[in-house]
């Protein structure tokens, strides 16, 4: 199958990219847009490390074809800080300050799943947070401090 030129809107910017119809979004983001903040942990939709936000929903970029994302708004971990100043988003600060980060490999996916949750539901219960993050695996933290970080972020004014 031939490569084709597509335009993806990533973190508010249009990017022209040459992709094969079979290319997965995670590979295009990492190799062609050079946004390596999106991680690949399993490539099979099990671990959630590749989570990005597409039109407001947390989506697994390892199960998403890049060509299917034309005309949509893609947000990666590089795109949630303040666009002008580069200051971290409150959810990023919350993860940092609550010890919710250890090795950091699941962190971008965890943060984006949390961000999508808090955009949709600014005051989630702990159970709702658990459910929203149930597709994101972490092997270091035992999750508790991650749940604490999301709760604290919601209590302190949310992500927007």
């Amino acid at each position, binding site marked *: 199958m031939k490569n084709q030129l597509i335009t993806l809107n990533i973190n508010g910017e249009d990017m022209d990219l040459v992709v094969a119809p079979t290319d997965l979004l995670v590979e295009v983001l990492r190799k062609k847009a050079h946004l390596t903040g999106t991680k690949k*942990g399993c490539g099979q939709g099990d671990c959630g490390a590749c989570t990005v936000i597409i039109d407001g929903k947390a989506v697994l970029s390892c199960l998403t074809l890049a060509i299917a994302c034309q005309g949509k708004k893609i947000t990666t971990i590089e795109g949630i800080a303040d666009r002008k100043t580069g200051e971290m988003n409150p959810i990023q600060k919350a993860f940092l300050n609550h010890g919710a980060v250890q090795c*950091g*490999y699941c962190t971008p996916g965890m943060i984006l799943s949390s961000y999508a949750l808090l955009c949709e539901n600014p005051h989630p219960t702990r159970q709702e947070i658990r*459910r929203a993050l149930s597709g994101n*695996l972490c092997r270091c933290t*035992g999750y*508790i401090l991650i749940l604490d970080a999301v709760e604290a972020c919601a209590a302190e004014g949310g992500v927007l």
Partner: protein
Amino acid sequence: MGMNKTFEVSNRYHDYKDYTREYTEVGRSIPRLDGPLKVTGKQQYTGDLSLPRMCYAKILRSPHAHAKIKNIDYSKALEMDGVLDVLTGKDFPIDYGIVAHSANEEVLARDKVRMWGEPVAAVCALTEEIAEAALDLIDVEYELLPVVTDARKSEQFANETGVLIHEDKPGNIAHQGSQEYGDVDSILAETEANGGVVVEGEFYSCQYHQSFIEPQAALADYDVNKNKLHLWATCQVPHYTHQQLAKVLQMPMKDIRITVPLLGGGFGGKGVATTADFITSKFSSRIGRPVKCVYERSEVFAQGQGHHPAFMKFRQGFDKDGHITAVDFKEIMVAGAYMSWGVVVLFYTASMTHLPYVTPAAKFAGKLIYTNTQTCGAHRGLGGAQPRFAMEIMMDMAAEKLGMNPLQIRLLNAVESGHTCRSMMYVPHSEYKKALATAAKNCDFENKVGKLPFGKGIGMSGGYYISGTSYTLYLSYKPHTVAMVKIEGENNVVLYCGATDIGQGADMVMAQMAAETLGVRSEDVKVESRDTETTTFDLGTFASRVTYATGWAIRRACEAANQKLFPVAAAIMGCRGQEVGVKDYQFYSIYERKRKNVDWHEVVDQYIQANGPLVTTGQFTPPRRKGIQQGGNIGHSPTFGFTCQIAEVTVDLYTGNVHVDKITEAGDLGQPINPMSCEGQVHGSIQMGMGHALLEEMRYADDGRLLNPSFHDYKLVGTMDIPEIDTEIVESYDPSSPYGAKESGEGPIQPTPSAIFNAVYDAIGFRCMEEPLTQEKVLNYLKSVGKNL
């Protein structure tokens, strides 16, 4: 209490802190220094790196678990557009392995494969997609051999079929070991004769995998003009990999540099060199371009290096008052297809039976057996998790027979500071009793155990782990770790240390320890680590050694710097050098701080203007202990951390599902350097331990195929499963440790499975002795006693 250790060092500079413990940097829960990079996606892991002209490598793996390789035809693959090179076993005549004496791993299989997923060839191509497509064009002709996956049958299999997994290992026995400390058989007979009890059981600790989220990766850049190799790798023991690369590639060590970007988890699984390290290096040297290889998740499982499964037969004696009299331990341990860390783990399991309880006599007989399954390696809690699982269940069995409660029998036997084991291992410091009592109090254990309604249960377990190891596999007598401190005006403080941050936060802890002694802020200390060329030597991240070992090296390097700076400060302040203290960027007289003090930068400037930059080093090697024999030196450690965990569970009587409601933990980890980080280590250990108890097991078909090499079929504990966790760091300070600290990342994984197993016994009376405690096993038990709903 073994307090004499404190006073031995009392005449040196700066030691007033040992008495006052007036720490300002140690003990601070500062967010990790690499955190901002990690939460913004800027942190580059090995798989994220790219270099100009970079190519990609992919590995062809065997679909068979045991087969001779008759022929490999890769001519079609080489012809494919975009394919640059192909490697097979012929290109790697030299074996590798972490234990040099028993190294038998082949980079690419030469004459036969011994496990499913074993690498047989590798392709280098312009893109990952082309490399992957080219793998399909390689034709490998196999002649299948009979397969053995059950270690208990492996010896008999070898004798009956005449087929050996390794030709030089009759009976498929990789190693045998025995230890005997005291006349255990006689003591156990006497124990029973004198009204005590002997409990026995057959236990199985299953094969689980570290399952770090970052797959292994390697990027090699070989400079063909200078004949120098630079490898970036996901490795927690870069200096060991350095030695092995030199051996396999037949290059001088000085021409090889290994840089480890931050790791996305390791837990021991990255404590070996990988196929990717070798093939990327070889490809790069042959084609003169940088080459990267990143594993798929199935390859992470194929590389193996998980926990060594063990079939364990135990007998343990208790006198009529509940004191342990002797332990008899027979073990068949599964090596998998190759040796890796195997022989070390075998002896660790033996050593680990001597603690955390006073054990007057112990006997061990173990065999490490080859099977056609994934090679096992160094899993978090190495060698401790197997016996601990069995022995904490036996503590409960003994308590029941003696009419004691689980807390009483543990308190009665728990070791205290200054304990010498029968094997001559020495425990300088222990607050284990405090940990037991604290955990029990925090969840009201004694009022719950044995008193909850059917289906609800509570279970206790204890654990401990070494904090560093006196035993090294590195073929050299040099110091185990070296730290170097550089102080100069422009860069403030730079700390060089070769220890590897695998996600646990070693870089931050090292900065905190340096800052404490130098009197500066942790956030201002630059840490240069994880590079075999630009930092100092360190054995690596394993055996929970980093905080203790590098702590001493760092403290000594920083004290050496202070020895240069204190006289300068004293001269400015008008006091004696011995009475200078330093804290918060200020030198001061420890007797009259308000009147006599001077800014840190002023002193440093004066020193540098006269002498140039201040560079000092410090080093540490754990003292060896005389009189340890029979292999008991494997397992000896400068100190030990202790922990107690209590699990509360609800068993679903319809489905057999075990729901963990709460884990209460109390730990003796000495002085926490960063309490928030320690809490994270404990939580993470519990998450893993829960998986081992209930979910995780690598399973094989009869033909040796690994059945669940994915997170779809190998389940991890997720956010919906994790219970409420209550942790408490008990008041503790180890005077033998540079800042009073002990391990916190491997002890806490030991008690979780047995605490859950003991809780299930308390809930429904099911004394299960094999991991994992699946829904199926629980339901079958409930049906067998007619208690299912």
